[in-house]
Every structure is written in structure tokens, then in C-alpha cells.
């Protein structure tokens, strides 16, 4: 069974991705600071279905100094790592002029530095196997503006540059690197949006419905599958037509 790391898999989009990939036959290594009832239920479900599997690995991913050790521990415990879904992220909002520097630092640390360093270490397995999959969860705000999230948007845009250049670095080894850009999805990250704002976003969507976690998970599932072996360096928008 192929091992695939999903960061931030305890809830929201990451949990949806973990569910989907385990149903596709992967052994998902779900990383977050805390597990929680939802992930435990998904783990039990995966074990009952017997197709794939989910294992929880507790790690604060903002601890950059720990990530090399984490990668070694994962390799030792689970074997070679086939792929990584860089999904964990902070969604701190606020006008840039009011945002404390420490918050900007926390955002860049978890949303940029952490996925870069973790990928660097997990790439080892993929270099050895001469194959692998890397999917970076960016956002449509990397390519379109939205007020009150300029710092966050900068971190999501960073994932696009990372994706394209890394795709060129490791492409000759059959390792693909792609980004997924979800539109607004109802999760804990977007709790502070009120009902009117949600309705406005949905009404603007070409499909007149919100982007669902499952829409995003399905795209990730495709990108890590063998069907997507010819796709790398791309930015896949999954937004129910927000940016159409």
C-alpha cells in the first residue's frame, strides 16, 4: 500500500482528502497537532472498509526545527513515502495595516516555510523510488484579490511558484508537483464569514453552489493517481466557478 502524507488532516479539507485517499487504497499518514473525533471516525471507517488505511501522526508543523526528525520517523515507522499533500495552513484574516508582525510571521512559517522544509525531507523517499506525488493546497486568492487577506494570499501565491519550479527540478524522476486552488469552502478556517457574505460568494459562483470539501478532495485524488502521471507544474482551480 502506498504511503501518502496529508498535513492538517484532522478536520476540514485535509480530513476530506484523507478520507478520499484511503478509500482509493492509500495508506494515509494524517498529520496535525491533535487528532479529534472526526479523524478517529474516518480512521475506523477506513479500517472497516479494508481498502486503504489512515494513521495519525502528531506534530506541530510550525516547529521547523523538528521536521527533519519527523520525516525520518515517518520513514522508519511506515516505509518509503509515495507522496505528500501540503494542506495544513493558517487562515488569519485582517487588514494588513492592522496586522501584528508576529501574525504575519506565523502565517508565513506554517503556510510557506513548513511545507517547503517538510517536502525537502520527504522527497528523499521519492528520489529513491524514482516516483512520487506532491500536491500543494493553494487558494484562488493566489490569483484573484479578496480584501482583508493580503498576507494570507501572499502565502498561497508562494505555493504556486514553489509548485512550478519544483516540478521542473524533479520531473525527470517521474515525480509530479501540482497545486490545487480551492474557492471558498465551509470549514473552521472560514468561520468568521457571516451568512450574507457566504450567500454572496455562492450566488457569484457559476454553479450557484458553494465549493464542497469533496470537490477539492476529488481533484487531489486524481492528481495522486496513476491517471495523472502526465500532469505536473499545474494550478488546478476547484471553485464551483467563482473565478469563471
Amino acid at each position, binding site marked *: 500500500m502506498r504511503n501518502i502524507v496529508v498535513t492538517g488532516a484532522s478536520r476540514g479539507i485535509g480530513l476530506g482528502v484523507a478520507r478520499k485517499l484511503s478509500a482509493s487504497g492509500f495508506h494515509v499518514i494524517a498529520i496535525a497537532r491533535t487528532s479529534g473525533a472526526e479523524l478517529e471516525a474516518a480512521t475506523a471507517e477506513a479500517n472497516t472498509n479494508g481498502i486503504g488505511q489512515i494513521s495519525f501522526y502528531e506534530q506541530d508543523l510550525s516547529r521547523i526545527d523538528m521536521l*527533519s526528525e519527523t520525516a525520518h520517523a515517518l520513514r522508519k515507522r511506515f516505509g518509503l513515502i509515495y507522496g505528500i499533500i501540503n494542506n495544513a495552513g493558517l487562515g488569519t484574516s485582517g487588514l494588513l495595516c492592522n496586522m501584528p508582525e508576529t501574525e504575519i510571521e506565523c502565517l508565513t512559517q506554517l503556510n510557506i516555510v513548513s511545507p517547503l522544509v517538510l517536502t525537502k525531507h520527504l*522527497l*528523499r*523517499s521519492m*528520489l*529513491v523510488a*524514482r516516483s512520487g506525488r506532491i500536491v500543494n493546497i493553494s487558494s484562488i486568492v493566489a490569483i484573484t484579490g479578496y480584501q482583508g487577506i493580503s498576507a494570507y494570499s501572499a502565502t498561497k501565491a508562494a505555493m504556486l511558484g514553489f509548485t512550478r519550479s519544483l516540478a521542473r*527540478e*524533479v520531473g*525527470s*524522476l517521474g515525480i509530479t508537483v501540482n497545486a490545487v486552488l480551492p474557492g471558498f469552502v465551509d470549514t473552521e478556517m472560514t468561520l468568521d464569514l457571516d451568512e450574507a457574505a457566504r450567500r454572496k460568494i455562492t450566488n457569484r459562483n457559476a454553479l450557484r453552489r458553494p465549493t464542497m470539501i469533496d470537490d477539492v478532495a476529488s481533484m487531489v485524488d486524481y492528481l495522486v493517481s496513476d491517471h495523472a502521471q502526465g500532469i505536473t507544474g499545474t494550478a488546478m482551480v476547484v471553485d464551483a466557478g467563482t473565478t469563471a
Partner: protein
Amino acid sequence: MAMRDTIIEMMTNIAQQQRKPLAPLQDDLNLLSSGLDSLCIAILVAELDEEFGIDPLSSTDDHNLPVTVGDFIRLYENAMQ
């Protein structure tokens, strides 16, 4: 197999797979002139870590690559002791 032979064999295989023409691997050959590019070296380091569980390059504070093929082999031979 001795560390030296393992490394030479890995270098040869990686060069072949990555379609890089490889110069005759002698101890005084500069690594950068061997034909292996930085990705090939990264694969080599990953494979050696996989095979022997050591990564002497990451544990030194000096992140400069060893200069010659001989330097590289000695670094790994010393790390195994």
C-alpha cells in the same frame, strides 16, 4: 560490498538512468566534472541514506559538497566507522 564499490556502482547506475555521460571515476576526479549533476548527487545521497542509514552531509555544519570523488567516498567511509 565495500562502501567504495557501493558508491561507484550507485553513481554508475544513476548516471545511466539520468542519461548523463560519466567520466572514469577516479579518486582525484572533481565531483562536478564527473558528469553527475546536483540532482544525481541528491539521488545518490538519498540512496546511501536508505542503504546505510547515514547522511554525513546533513550532519556537518559545512554544507559544501566534498570536492572530489575520493573525498565523497572517504566522508561515507568515515561516517560508517
